[in-house]
Each structure stands twice: as structure tokens, then as C-alpha cells.
């Protein structure tokens, strides 16, 4: 069984994404939303670690409406999947439980 992690704080100002990455397991998913989507850009703190985790089987998603609202479409790191609320709901079904980091 696996966990979906949601992150809604900027990794530039808060350490929530770092905390999440330290404990998330193979097959877990990470969804970035609200100010958490600043973690999806190439220059984000822990961007390298995020890419490494993606290679190791962790899926990383970002809410497309929050990406567009903040004008970040051209700045996204590779392998981050853009999703809408319908897919967000589906992700919560595909994982056993949801840990919201804030």
C-alpha cells in the first residue's frame, strides 16, 4: 500500500517538501498544489532530489490550475505530471491514504 503526499507550501520559504521527501517511500505519490507548485520549477530547492526520487519510482504531480495561476508553465522541471482536480480525486483513490504537509 502507498501514500499520496500533498504539499501546499513553497519550498523556498517552508521546509515541508524536504520533510516529505525524507520519509516518502517507493510507489508513493506527491501532489504539489497552491504555493506548493513552486516546488515544480527547475530551480526549486531539492529539485535534484525530487528528480532522483522520480527515477526511483515516486510519481510527482502538480495541479495545473495552480501552475497556470502563478505563470510557471515555462519553468517546469521534467517528469512532473500536470493534473486537474478530477485526476487529484483519482490519485487519492489510487493510494491508500493521503498525508497533507503544510
Amino acid at each position, binding site marked *: 500500500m502507498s501514500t499520496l503526499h500533498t504539499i*501546499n507550501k513553497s519550498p523556498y520559504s517552508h521546509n515541508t517538501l524536504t520533510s516529505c521527501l525524507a520519509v516518502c517511500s517507493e510507489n508513493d505519490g506527491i501532489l504539489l*498544489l*497552491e*504555493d506548493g507548485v513552486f516546488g515544480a520549477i527547475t530551480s526549486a530547492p531539492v529539485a535534484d532530489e525530487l528528480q532522483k526520487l522520480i527515477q526511483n519510482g515516486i510519481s510527482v504531480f502538480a495541479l495545473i*490550475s495552480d501552475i497556470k495561476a502563478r505563470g510557471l508553465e515555462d519553468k517546469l522541471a521534467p517528469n512532473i505530471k500536470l493534473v*486537474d*482536480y*478530477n485526476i*487529484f*480525486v483519482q490519485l*487519492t*483513490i489510487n493510494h491508500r*491514504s*493521503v498525508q*497533507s504537509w*503544510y
Partner: protein
Amino acid sequence: MIFSLAVYAAPYSSQASYSAYKFAMATLEQGHKLHRIFFYQDGAHNATNLASPPQDEFNLQQAWQSLAKDHNLDLVVCIAAALRRGVLNESEAKRYNKPSHNLADEFTISGLGQLVEAAVVSDRLISFG
């Protein structure tokens, strides 16, 4: 599937309540059951009927009320959180000798047990804070 949501942040000041609202809409559109939305901590401010944002701004309190009416939703505000933050229904206002009450229609005030009960009966409990 049976979903419940927990909302811990104030509307307007934080985007988290709005995200919860959009998530709630998506679960309903997909035909899932939304057992309860529980408002705790600053989430209690979602339940005031006095918020008066400018006409051209999104009014989340009203949006919750419409959604609840359309889908017969159970919107519950934690009583301890609500009392501390000044969100009262008529009977609590009387009990505490307060001059008025401000709980919006469609919301009910109840205990923390309602969050735990929601966890027990729901397949998924998603927190927004």
C-alpha cells in the same frame, strides 16, 4: 467511494479552503459520496454568514452553501474551534450571552467526534490546511 474532507484554514486568507471546495466538487461530479466536510481550526471562518467580499471576488462561504444545498451535504464546524473564533449559532450565542449569532445556513456546529466518525465511515479522508 465514500469521501470526507477536513478543512483547517480560513477562506480568503489562505487558498486551502478554496482547494477543498474544488476537490469536493470533483468528487461529486465523479459520482462519489461526500459523507461530511468538517471545519476545524481557522476553517471555522468558512461558516460565518457575515463575510461581505467585493462583488467581483469569489465568495467561498456562499459557494459552500450552494454546494451543500444542491447535494445535501453535511457541513460541520467544530464547536470548540468555532466558539474560540467567534462563530456561533443561536443556541450557543444564548448560552454565552452574546448579542448576536453568525453561523451560515447549511452549516451545523458539533463536536470533534464528528471528524473521527467521518474517518471511521469514509474510505478516504482528505485534509486541507
